[in-house]
């Protein structure tokens, strides 16, 4: 029996209902974690439309996927966020061709501008990074992954992950500095 004062019990019961296909329980999960999943996806994909797809896909599949989850309440946010990252990376990969209209390395060289209209926000600067650099930067700085985890996630070496992070930071700094 689940006590109202037992958050773990409440969570476990809700998870079981989600696993059983209870839409109310799934809605409760969405209410609790939907924004976080959406934000993580939006950052990584750079697109709210893609983030919607990612979030939808994750929650539609959650009843099945959650059957494998046997961790604690405290572990669930990390787990669902990781799944969101996975889905978002797949979306980035699928959408990469849309970015190929411009020279890949455009962000690596910047030119000074006296025009205040050129000033960038951090989000706009992130948009100018290549997918590879932006992804590593966000995984490290926002999602809090270690380089070893990023390397495993992206199928690259740890050194490559570090190099991409350094380059992303350098480019962001230059972009933001030059735009001021």
């Amino acid at each position: 029996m689940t006590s109202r004062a037992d958050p773990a019990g409440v969570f476990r019961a809700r998870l079981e209902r989600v696993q059983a296909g209870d839409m109310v329980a799934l809605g409760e999960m969405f209410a609790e974690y939907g924004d976080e999943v959406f934000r993580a996806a939006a950052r990584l994909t750079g697109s709210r439309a893609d983030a919607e797809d990612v979030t939808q896909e994750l929650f539609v599949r959650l009843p099945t996927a959650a059957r494998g989850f046997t961790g604690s309440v405290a572990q669930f946010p990390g787990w669902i966020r990781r799944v969101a990252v996975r889905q978002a990376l797949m979306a980035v990969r699928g959408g990469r061709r849309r970015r190929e209209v411009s020279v890949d390395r455009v962000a690596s060289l910047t030119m000074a501008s006296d025009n205040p209209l050129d000033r960038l926000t951090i989000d706009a600067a992130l948009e100018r990074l290549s997918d590879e650099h932006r992804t590593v930067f966000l995984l490290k700085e926002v999602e809090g992954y270690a380089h070893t985890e990023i390397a495993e996630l992206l199928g690259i070496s740890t050194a490559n992950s570090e190099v991409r992070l350094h380059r992303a930071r350098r480019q962001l700094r230059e972009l933001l500095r030059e735009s001021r």
Partner: protein
Amino acid sequence: MMNALMYAMHPTFDELSAFADLSDVGGKKTRVGRHVSRCARCRDTLEDIRALGIAVRASSSEGAPSGLWHRIERAARGNSVSQAEPRETLPPDAPEWEIAPSLRPTGFVASPFRARPVRWLIGVAAAVIVVGAVLLWPNGRSLGAASVSRLTFSPARPVPGGILSVRYQPVSWLKGQPRLVLVGSSIGSREVGYRIASSLSDSIASLQPSPDGSFEARVRLPNDFVALQLAVSDSASLEVDTDGYYRWLVIGGTPDGRPSLVSFRASAEVYRAFGDLNRSVQPRQRVDPADSLKRYFPSNPAGWAYSRSQPGSGSAFSRLVAFFRSSERKYLSFHEALWPRTDLSADQLHDMYVFANTISEPGEVNRWAGRFAKEHPEDPRAFGDLVDALHQLELREPPQLADSIRPWFVTLDSIYSLARLDTVWSVRDAYMTTNGISSLLSRYADSVTIRAWQPRFEGARRLYFWYWGFEPSAQRRKLAERDWLRAASSSCVRPAGKFSVARWGGDWVTTCQRDRVFAFTFLSQARLLDGDARSARAYADSALTAPLGTSNCARYFRVYEARANANLALGDTAAARADLVLAVAIWPQDGARRDSASALLGSRFNASAFDVATDSTRRAFAACASRVDIERRAAERKRSMQ
């Protein structure tokens, strides 16, 4: 000298970036940590780096849109009509993004902040791999035999003029080739890291297929062979395989079968330079020249000088502490033995200087660098070592600092002439020198000394501006323009016998072509600043028409903006408007571009017409990109079927 300069200069951006990720406790113990604690400029850069993370985390982003749940609900109930179904089919290229096992929805979920490998499991796996490697390579004489490597060679320590047999098990993307090319870079006896980090390597030998699927080659080594870094390329230089971040390392021996001190020293110096830039890589080297130096030449300071950590059990911090304790004792014993001697070689003096740096003793650094400079001013390394020592002295801010530094300018001048630094400096050395010696000169030297040194840094300054982009100062811009002109004049044809070895960042030809486009763009802007609008437009046209790999649909928006500016200066508003439409269409997500176009065109900006033209151009770009993508995939499929 290179490594000495690295100590002397402010930490590189990459070093500061790596440092930003360290904990405060661990970070303060590092060279960078000590430098940062005393250097306001580097602290500013560090704060910038940390601010990026803070800014992006604080960046306000909206949560899920209100209608999303209804969409999910409909999709989950399976009665969605108007909404897109969840994707059930993975993108064709999904395997590259195949999720790591730890991220699959399983029972155990490791915290992203606390995930640690299971050590015993790794140990068992490593043991199995090592046993497998020994079985697969029966003679077991390869230097890389201690770990699994796709590339193995024998003898383990080849001698100058000897034969090196190489066997290579191809990675998937190099399988099925009729032949492969063994490419490499020689490490000289006083080599520095960056020179061999060039993205182009020489062809060493042809790797021929053998019946078991591997490739083999025999290489006759040059008579002055010291050490070698190897990689494997296909014959067209489209694909390359390296040993992770590094290339495979071959360290030479002596004809009497002993390990070569010169080879180990040169390799250690090269790898120390890389390791300094990337902490996490060095411990994973298959070959550790510093460790070998310690083992084979225990009475030589070099092995200790180039060591960066103490292997063994315990936490990384405790190993670091153990390293400093044992290394400091060792340093004192070397110091006691070597300091009284008057016949020390340049290598010994340099090694003691490096050793002092390794154990973070600036006073000792100063002592050995000063002696090196006085006793071997003909050695180019003495220059960088001394600059480093002076910079460390500067950071300590002792009384009468300027009086302590000024006399050394005479010595530095002497080394510059005797060591012929104007001829032996690599480009990168010269670049770093700009930040080192010139900053010392600007703070402590008199105007006569500064003027005497000025011409020596001209090349370095040009390079600096090439790396860091547009320089608005007319005088400095003229210097930078020479490099832009040189890049713009390049044919971007890979030199015969040279192979691209960069694993990332694009192949050499593509990189060269992009540099050309950027150079033309810089030149266009420079000419416009000079008031020469016609030349500016000609350069911009060149930037738009120069060959550029396969992504030919559009170029960097700055190129279009450069031509728009030139056209405006020439009074051709229609052409400028067309260029600005292109610039905006490339970056549709950036509203500032459109605003910028509006500001440039002023009263001639017709918003609705501009937006219509932009949309149309954007669609054309998208169609082109799609076509290029289809062609690229078709080419890849064809290639994979071959």
